[in-house]
């Protein structure tokens, strides 16, 4: 029965193909198929051993590298290829083959177990495609936003630079002003000194000044009748060594040159002389004391006012100078921070972002600090800006904030901020995996990176 035979051969061939596909090369990717071509023997891929081909996928590990058992769990170092049509193919460790847990979405890993695995690849693929599309949209949008932010960043950078230059100019101007004012103040001070010196030079110099004689006379002449009487002397003049005691009438008369009153001309040559010598009597009232004569002096008053004026001016200029310098150093410090290759992170400076997690509110102020505030209200520092700490490939993927509030068991709180791509700039999550070590997920368009290659997904089924 040749035709029948023929039919059988065809059937056998069909079955054989199916057999090879399903058993012999279970668990390998198409790129590995060349190692598993049906021959008499199989060479372990590491070349260590030749075994009969029947021993491939026979559930016993012959090859050191596990290459003879791609489709079973027999080799400790083996791996199983999930084809996952409709989703992403991937390798799983051989130990997950027939372990009762569905690992491949196409259920191919549980071909001989009690697990009832559904093929979920299509759903997963769809979900993933949707997700990836979403991601791509986010990325596109993010990248656009990033471009804006980069442009803004550049502008901001320039602005800041200009601001710096301006400030520096102001500082220079102030410097000049400052010197001028220092000079002025110095002069005014000198003038004042001189005036004081002159006033303090003693009675001889005072005597020569008629105005002083007359003013003293006026001081003593309480009733302003042009002559000094005994009463007036008793009221205003005291002994140098005993200020409290009132002069006797005799003493007063003696001071008035033996008379009961005295005109200014006589005063100039008698009592004035005694008073300016100052060894026996003096004028009682503090206002009339020789010292206060300085305060009364209009020259001195003018000099003093001038000096004060100049000092105030100088102080104002100094303060302005200091403020400007502080601003400059602040700005310089800020500008010294690495804001990314295109200053794209610059806009984050001076911003703060909050997130509430359970009973705590976390605040991230990029390039400045991280804090935690409990509902009870106490604020704790979780670290101050330290540095970028991302991967060598992208160092801008992570920020480190260090030296926050000290911890119970020593050390201090610190926070690692991971930056991820998103269309908004926001704090997404905060965790404390170990005590006092916080990790934050911070989303921002500037973290978006253009992707060169997309991950492969089977779109065919």
């Amino acid at each position, binding site marked *: 029965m040749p035709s029948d035979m023929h039919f059988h051969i065809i059937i056998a061939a069909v079955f054989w193909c199916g057999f090879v596909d399903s058993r012999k090369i279970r668990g390998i990717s198409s790129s590995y198929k060349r190692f598993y071509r049906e021959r008499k023997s199989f060479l372990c891929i590491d070349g260590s051993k030749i075994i009969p081909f029947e021993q491939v996928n026979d559930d*016993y590990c012959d090859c050191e590298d596990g290459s003879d058992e791609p489709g079973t769990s027999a080799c400790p170092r083996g791996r199983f290829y999930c084809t996952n049509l409709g989703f992403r193919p991937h390798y799983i460790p051989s130990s997950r083959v027939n372990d009762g847990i569905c690992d491949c979405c196409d259920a191919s890993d549980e071909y001989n177990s009690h697990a009832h695995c559904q093929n979920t690849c299509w759903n997963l693929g769809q979900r993933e495609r949707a997700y990836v599309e979403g991601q791509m949209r986010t990325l596109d949008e993010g990248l656009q936003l990033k471009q804006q932010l980069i442009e803004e960043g550049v502008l901001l950078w320039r602005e800041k630079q200009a601001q710096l230059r301006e400030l520096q100019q102001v500082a220079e101007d102030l410097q000049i002003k400052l010197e001028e004012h220092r000079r002025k103040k110095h002069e005014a001070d000198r003038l004042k000194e001189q005036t004081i010196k002159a006033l303090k030079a003693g009675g001889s110099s005072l005597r020569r000044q008629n105005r002083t004689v007359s003013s003293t006379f006026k001081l003593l002449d309480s009733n302003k009748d042009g002559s000094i009487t005994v009463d007036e002397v008793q009221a205003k003049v005291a002994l140098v060594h005993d200020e409290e005691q009132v002069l006797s009438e005799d003493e007063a008369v003696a001071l008035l040159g033996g008379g009961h009153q005295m005109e200014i001309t006589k005063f100039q040559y008698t009592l004035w002389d005694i008073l300016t010598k100052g060894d026996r009597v003096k004028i009682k009232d503090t206002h009339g004391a020789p010292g206060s004569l300085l305060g009364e002096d209009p020259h001195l008053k003018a000099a003093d006012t001038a000096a004060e004026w100049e000092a105030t001016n100088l102080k104002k200029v100094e303060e302005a100078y200091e403020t400007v310098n502080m601003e400059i150093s602040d700005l310089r410090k800020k500008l010294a921070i690495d804001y990314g290759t295109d200053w794209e992170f610059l806009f984050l400076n001076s911003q703060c972002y909050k997130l509430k997690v359970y009973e705590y509110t976390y605040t991230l102020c990029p390039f400045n600090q991280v804090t935690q505030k409990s509902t009870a209200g106490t604020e704790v520092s979780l670290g101050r800006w330290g540095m970028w700490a991302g991967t060598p490939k992208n160092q801008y993927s992570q920020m480190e904030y260090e030296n926050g509030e000290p911890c*119970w068991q020593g050390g201090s709180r610190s926070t690692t901020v991971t930056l991820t791509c998103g269309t908004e700039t926001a704090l997404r999550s905060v965790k404390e995996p170990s*005590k006092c070590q916080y990790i934050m997920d911070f989303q921002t368009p500037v973290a978006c990176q253009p992707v060169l290659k997309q991950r492969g997904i089977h779109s065919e089924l």
Partner: protein
Amino acid sequence: MATITERMAPVLVLWLAVCLSGTWAVDKGNFKTCDQSTFCKRQRALKPAESPYRALLETMELTNTRLTLQLINDNNKVRLLLELYRLQGNMTRVKINELKPLKPRYEVPDVLIREPPTEPLSLLSQDENGVVLSLGAESQRVIVSAQPFRLDIMEGRDVLMSLNSRGLLAFEHLRMRKDTFSYKVTSTVASVWDNIKRVFSSQVEPEAEKKEEDDPANQSETTKEEEEKVEDGMWEETFKSHSDSKPNGPSAVSLDFSLPGVEHVYGIPEHADTLRLKTTDNGDPYRLYNLDVFQYELYNPMALYGAVPVMLAHNAQRTTGIFWLNAAETWVDISSNTAGKTVFGKMLDYVQGSSETPQTDVRWISESGIIDVFIMLGPTPNDVFSQYASLTGTQSFPPLAAVSYHQCRWNYNDQEDVASVDAGFDEHDIPYDYIWLDIEHTDGKRYFTWDPHKFATPKEMLQGLMDKKRKMVAIVDPHIKVDSNYKIHNEIRSRGFYIKNKDGGDYEGWCWPGSAGYPDFTRADVREWWASMFAYDQYEGSMENLYTWNDMNEPSVFNGPEVTMHKDAVHGSWEHRDVHNLYGFYVQMATTEGLIQRSGGVERPFVLTRAFFAGSQRYGAVWTGDNAAEWEHLKISIPMCLSLGLVGISFCGADVGGFFKSPSTELLVRWYQTGAYQPFFRAHAHLDTPRREPWLFGPENTALIREAVRQRYALLPYWYQQFYHAHRTGQPIMRPLWVEYPQDPATFALDDEFLIGKDLLVHPVTEEGARGVTAYLPGKGEVWFDVQTFQKHNGAQNLYIPVTMSSIPVFQRGGSIIPKKMRVRRSSSCMMHDPYTLYVALNPQRTAEGKLYIDDGHTFNYEKKEFIHRRLSFANNILSSVNLALDAQFTTQSWIERIVILGASKPSTVTLKTADGQESQLEFDFDASMSVLTLRKPGMNAGVDWNVMLQ
């Protein structure tokens, strides 16, 4: 989990500040020395001398099962009743109580699994000096000497053990308070009530006094003497700011034991000390008093979390044991002496030829209760284990998963954290079975609840784990938050289940939740209620893959004396003083019962406890408490678990990595390598330490840890079989070498290496920067095979083994067969149906023997004979598997995928013959350099008869 000072309940801050003052070591000042524990001080002040006790032989009554005899203290005329039993299995029980106590004295219930069956005692001879009783066949006798009273247990001419030979039997009889002079009237009603009660109970007194009058000794003299003996601390005692009202007055008991010919004694855990117990002459005795010790110190006799009052004595001829069944605070003095130097009876002088025999003297002192001692006479170590097991039961047989690897941390913060750690294990291809949640998972430290934010959907989380065939343990501590919105508290309070304070109100102490009550677990009804709380409909959010951890069950009371409960707290008619060391035992008992009940008695429970007592082995696992990430703590984990194994508690482990502080990467790796070969294998870390999941230390260290954990999983069939064996026999799983080589004195003090079962010897690397270790391989004429290289080494030698970071020195005994599963998967239940590889290590006689035990891994069905138990043996070039349990029924999908024969020669053919008569040739591979023969894929089912012939 942490002790006290660590967790920062704001209310405790002040207290913490005091406690934390500076150092990392334990604050010894928080715990009593013998001198500060007045009964210990009083008892220890007694020096060896002629005993004041005299046996009144005329009161002797001998029935078929027991001998009773009155003892009288010639100093105070108080009479004691001695009971002597010969128990089945070569044990003697000695019980001493007051003949007429003022009120009953506490006798420990629930620890013995049954009233121990007795055997007939027969009188051999009797004269005015004493009696001689036969202890059965082996020419063993008990000699009761009358004056002074002592007991000597003899075998032939040898004294095995003497009791009261140093005259240290002391029994503080209950008495009326007579020292009214120093009596301080307290204002509390309860104390007045106590006094009233005392007055009423004293009505029994006259009778006792009448008895005393019968005695010729002068009554008035007695009274005087007694009055003189009133000492400070008898009726009231203070420690730090705590006062103990001691309404019953002094009640201590004490007895000495002499062990001629013994230089090595072991046991009485829990102490952070060497395996071999040290003499205590120059310091404090070993203390047994369950305490939550913050940052415990190593190599000292201070009490720790658990207490098992069992001591083993060993020499090359014999192993014996002493089980002092008393749950009160207990101190054990050990001194070393020679027999000739002690006050020794005439009998001994007569039989003992040499006076140079080494001797160990032991003395037990307990604060209350009675003297109830079980003397286990061996003679082999395994005999002692089965004797002790016949009294208190064996190790519970845990589910297989519990023997696997556990991942714990204080705390995994929320469900997301749990999910990501779980995923981390898969990502790094490291197996684990249980992930653990510490106290932070609860809603405000209210056990049986979940934090509503962090663990909002516990069942979802548990289902996620179940989908991966993994499990979870959540903590349930015995301190209950006093909070009228907390169901558990309300129930306990309304049912009157809390322990009471001395004034009759509910006892309250500080613990994690703040003010907390403590259920009286000594009550059966309380335990029953507690167990019912684990029902799935009671414990919301629980599922069948959720198991339990009992911590802080010493009990820990932050503001109590020595961080525990006041001794005058009240458990029904007993004081906390009487039952203290039992509390943790009962907590675990009730919890375990709960886990059994929730599955209708089907599933095996798993409960970890920190506090324990004799018999705790029946309820689960213990761990060595809050250790530290230090090399010395890694080292001490070995003797600590060995000591526990010797007294029945096999399921022991230490926190891998160390609880306090942060381990160096090297220490962490070494600890994983050590823990992988200890019975309970769990990593744990303190809240304040950085994360230390196995993949956080670079790929190289991840690989080292992965390998250690994988070695554990590959060996699970052997481990499981050891647990089954321990469950059946009471033999320890992790064993000191002397247990298997009892005649080799070189093994007697070894505690840096150990055996698992009898076939694997492990010498973990516990030195920083180690380049090599020196392991002692025991057994003259035996050989050991390195399990990694298959290199063969001779026994009875010290072997230097060079090590690298990947080395875990483990040796398989020549003459053994060990089953392994080489397909290590992500959890133990994923490996259920996997095939076996048999490692046959030949001895010089070219024979080997081993066992294979298989069951479903998680139910009690093994009790219904649903298991496979087979003997594997190799002799005359034939390896065969025969059924050891013909009446057992179980089928397995597992098959034999590989047989590796170590120390083999090259055969020409290898033939497999199965039970149905089928014969087939097996392919094999022979490595001549190491003499290793590997049989390829024999393929027969693991549960059937077969043999393999090498020709």
